[in-house]
Protein backbone atom coordinates (compact mmCIF):
# COMPACT_ATOMS: atom_id res chain seq x y z
CA UNK A 1 0.00 0.00 0.00
CA UNK A 2 2.78 2.36 1.03
CA UNK A 3 4.69 1.56 -2.16
CA UNK A 4 1.69 2.37 -4.33
CA UNK A 5 1.26 5.66 -2.46
CA UNK A 6 4.89 6.61 -2.95
CA UNK A 7 4.77 5.62 -6.59
CA UNK A 8 1.67 7.69 -7.07
CA UNK A 9 3.25 10.72 -5.44
CA UNK A 10 6.39 10.32 -7.56
CA UNK A 11 4.30 10.12 -10.70
CA UNK A 12 2.42 13.23 -9.72
CA UNK A 13 5.65 15.08 -8.96
CA UNK A 14 7.02 14.16 -12.37
CA UNK A 15 3.78 14.82 -14.14
CA UNK A 16 3.12 18.37 -12.86
CA UNK A 17 6.08 20.01 -14.62
CA UNK A 18 5.11 18.19 -17.78
CA UNK A 19 1.80 20.01 -17.72
CA UNK A 20 3.36 23.42 -17.42
CA UNK A 21 5.16 25.39 -20.05
CA UNK A 22 8.22 27.48 -19.44
CA UNK A 23 9.44 30.01 -21.82
CA UNK A 24 12.49 32.19 -21.51
CA UNK A 25 12.29 35.43 -23.34
CA UNK A 26 15.52 36.64 -24.82
CA UNK A 27 15.32 40.31 -25.63
CA UNK A 28 17.87 41.44 -28.16
CA UNK A 29 20.62 43.47 -26.56
CA UNK A 30 20.32 47.08 -27.61
CA UNK A 31 23.57 48.96 -27.87
CA UNK A 32 22.89 52.64 -27.35
CA UNK A 33 24.29 54.84 -30.11
CA UNK A 34 27.79 55.84 -29.01
CA UNK A 35 28.24 56.92 -32.62
CA UNK A 36 26.10 60.00 -31.91
CA UNK A 37 28.84 61.43 -29.66
CA UNK A 38 31.52 60.55 -32.18
CA UNK A 39 29.37 61.90 -35.00
CA UNK A 40 29.03 65.38 -33.43
CA UNK A 41 32.79 65.60 -32.83
CA UNK A 42 33.43 64.73 -36.46
CA UNK A 43 30.91 67.36 -37.59
CA UNK A 44 32.56 69.98 -35.36
CA UNK A 45 36.02 69.11 -36.72
CA UNK A 46 34.75 69.34 -40.31
CA UNK A 47 33.04 72.67 -39.67
CA UNK A 48 36.22 74.07 -38.10
CA UNK A 49 38.36 72.78 -40.99
CA UNK A 50 35.95 74.26 -43.53
CA UNK A 51 35.89 77.62 -41.77
CA UNK A 52 39.64 78.06 -41.47
CA UNK A 53 40.00 76.77 -45.02
CA UNK A 54 37.63 79.51 -46.19
CA UNK A 55 39.67 82.13 -44.33
CA UNK A 56 42.89 80.92 -45.98
CA UNK A 57 41.26 80.83 -49.41
CA UNK A 58 39.82 84.33 -49.07
CA UNK A 59 43.16 85.69 -47.82
CA UNK A 60 44.91 84.16 -50.84
CA UNK A 61 42.34 85.76 -53.19
CA UNK A 62 42.85 89.17 -51.57
CA UNK A 63 46.63 88.99 -51.88
CA UNK A 64 46.46 88.33 -55.66
Amino acid at each position, binding site marked *: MKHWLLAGLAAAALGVPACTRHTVKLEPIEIKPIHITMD*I*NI*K*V*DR*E*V*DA*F*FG*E*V*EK*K*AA*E*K*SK
Partner: protein
Amino acid sequence: MSGRCLRAALSVGLCAAILGAVATVARADTKEEIVDRMAKRLDTVKKHKADGKIGETFDGLVDAVKAESLDDKALKKLVDDENADRKKFYALGAEKLGTTPEKFALSAGKRTFRDAKPNEWLKPKDGKWVQKKDLKE
Protein backbone atom coordinates in the same frame (compact mmCIF):
# COMPACT_ATOMS: atom_id res chain seq x y z
CA MET B 1 6.31 124.65 -41.52
CA SER B 2 5.39 125.74 -38.03
CA GLY B 3 7.87 125.42 -35.16
CA ARG B 4 5.81 122.70 -33.51
CA CYS B 5 5.69 120.58 -36.68
CA LEU B 6 9.40 121.03 -37.24
CA ARG B 7 10.21 119.95 -33.69
CA ALA B 8 7.97 116.92 -34.07
CA ALA B 9 9.60 115.97 -37.37
CA LEU B 10 13.09 116.33 -35.88
CA SER B 11 12.12 114.20 -32.89
CA VAL B 12 10.78 111.44 -35.12
CA GLY B 13 13.88 111.61 -37.29
CA LEU B 14 16.18 111.44 -34.28
CA CYS B 15 14.30 108.45 -32.86
CA ALA B 16 14.52 106.66 -36.20
CA ALA B 17 18.25 107.33 -36.37
CA ILE B 18 18.83 106.01 -32.86
CA LEU B 19 16.75 102.89 -33.52
CA GLY B 20 18.65 102.30 -36.74
CA ALA B 21 21.99 102.57 -34.97
CA VAL B 22 20.89 100.19 -32.23
CA ALA B 23 19.63 97.70 -34.81
CA THR B 24 22.97 97.82 -36.63
CA VAL B 25 24.93 97.18 -33.44
CA ALA B 26 22.57 94.46 -32.24
CA ARG B 27 22.64 92.44 -35.48
CA ALA B 28 24.82 89.36 -35.19
CA ASP B 29 27.70 88.95 -37.63
CA THR B 30 27.29 86.41 -40.37
CA LYS B 31 29.90 83.75 -40.96
CA GLU B 32 30.88 85.44 -44.23
CA GLU B 33 31.59 88.72 -42.43
CA ILE B 34 33.75 86.91 -39.88
CA VAL B 35 35.65 85.08 -42.64
CA ASP B 36 36.17 88.35 -44.46
CA ARG B 37 37.64 90.13 -41.43
CA MET B 38 39.86 87.19 -40.48
CA ALA B 39 41.09 86.88 -44.08
CA LYS B 40 42.14 90.55 -44.09
CA ARG B 41 44.03 90.00 -40.86
CA LEU B 42 45.58 86.63 -41.72
CA ASP B 43 48.86 87.79 -43.22
CA THR B 44 49.56 90.01 -40.21
CA VAL B 45 48.68 87.18 -37.81
CA LYS B 46 51.02 84.81 -39.68
CA LYS B 47 53.82 87.41 -39.63
CA HIS B 48 53.55 87.90 -35.86
CA LYS B 49 53.47 84.13 -35.34
CA ALA B 50 56.61 83.73 -37.45
CA ASP B 51 58.27 86.53 -35.43
CA GLY B 52 57.41 84.71 -32.22
CA LYS B 53 55.31 87.57 -30.86
CA ILE B 54 52.02 85.65 -30.76
CA GLY B 55 51.07 82.01 -30.68
CA GLU B 56 48.09 79.67 -30.69
CA THR B 57 46.44 78.41 -27.51
CA PHE B 58 44.92 74.97 -26.89
CA ASP B 59 41.45 76.54 -26.83
CA GLY B 60 41.56 77.98 -30.32
CA LEU B 61 42.68 81.55 -29.59
CA VAL B 62 45.80 83.61 -30.15
CA ASP B 63 47.79 85.22 -27.37
CA ALA B 64 51.02 87.16 -26.89
CA VAL B 65 53.92 84.88 -26.06
CA LYS B 66 55.30 87.61 -23.77
CA ALA B 67 52.75 89.75 -21.90
CA GLU B 68 54.78 92.94 -22.46
CA SER B 69 54.24 92.55 -26.22
CA LEU B 70 50.68 93.71 -25.61
CA ASP B 71 52.04 97.16 -24.73
CA ASP B 72 52.13 97.52 -28.51
CA LYS B 73 48.59 98.80 -29.09
CA ALA B 74 48.47 97.57 -32.68
CA LEU B 75 49.42 94.06 -31.59
CA LYS B 76 46.91 94.12 -28.75
CA LYS B 77 44.16 95.20 -31.15
CA LEU B 78 45.12 92.44 -33.55
CA VAL B 79 44.96 89.81 -30.81
CA ASP B 80 41.67 91.16 -29.43
CA ASP B 81 40.02 91.43 -32.85
CA GLU B 82 41.19 87.98 -33.94
CA ASN B 83 39.95 86.36 -30.74
CA ALA B 84 36.63 88.21 -30.88
CA ASP B 85 36.02 86.91 -34.42
CA ARG B 86 37.09 83.37 -33.54
CA LYS B 87 34.74 83.34 -30.55
CA LYS B 88 31.91 84.58 -32.77
CA PHE B 89 32.52 81.73 -35.19
CA TYR B 90 32.65 79.19 -32.34
CA ALA B 91 29.30 80.50 -31.06
CA LEU B 92 27.74 80.44 -34.55
CA GLY B 93 29.02 76.95 -35.26
CA ALA B 94 27.86 75.66 -31.88
CA GLU B 95 24.39 77.04 -32.48
CA LYS B 96 24.26 75.45 -35.93
CA LEU B 97 25.27 71.99 -34.71
CA GLY B 98 23.53 72.13 -31.35
CA THR B 99 26.66 71.85 -29.31
CA THR B 100 28.88 74.14 -27.20
CA PRO B 101 31.31 76.86 -28.29
CA GLU B 102 33.92 75.11 -26.12
CA LYS B 103 33.80 72.05 -28.39
CA PHE B 104 34.49 74.27 -31.37
CA ALA B 105 37.26 76.11 -29.57
CA LEU B 106 39.03 72.88 -28.59
CA SER B 107 38.67 71.49 -32.11
CA ALA B 108 40.18 74.69 -33.50
CA GLY B 109 43.00 74.45 -30.97
CA LYS B 110 43.80 70.91 -32.11
CA ARG B 111 43.81 72.07 -35.72
CA THR B 112 46.09 75.06 -35.18
CA PHE B 113 48.46 72.93 -33.09
CA ARG B 114 48.55 70.32 -35.86
CA ASP B 115 49.22 72.91 -38.59
CA ALA B 116 51.72 75.04 -36.64
CA LYS B 117 55.21 75.43 -38.06
CA PRO B 118 58.13 74.05 -36.01
CA ASN B 119 59.25 77.46 -34.70
CA GLU B 120 55.78 78.76 -33.89
CA TRP B 121 54.74 79.05 -30.26
CA LEU B 122 51.90 77.10 -28.75
CA LYS B 123 50.25 77.30 -25.34
CA PRO B 124 48.88 73.91 -24.23
CA LYS B 125 46.53 73.39 -21.31
CA ASP B 126 49.32 73.72 -18.75
CA GLY B 127 49.73 77.38 -19.77
CA LYS B 128 53.44 77.09 -20.60
CA TRP B 129 54.50 78.38 -24.00
CA VAL B 130 56.42 75.89 -26.08
CA GLN B 131 57.56 75.82 -29.67
CA LYS B 132 55.90 73.24 -31.90
CA LYS B 133 59.19 71.40 -32.39
CA ASP B 134 59.44 70.91 -28.60
CA LEU B 135 55.81 69.99 -28.04
CA LYS B 136 55.29 66.62 -26.41
CA GLU B 137 52.25 64.87 -27.99
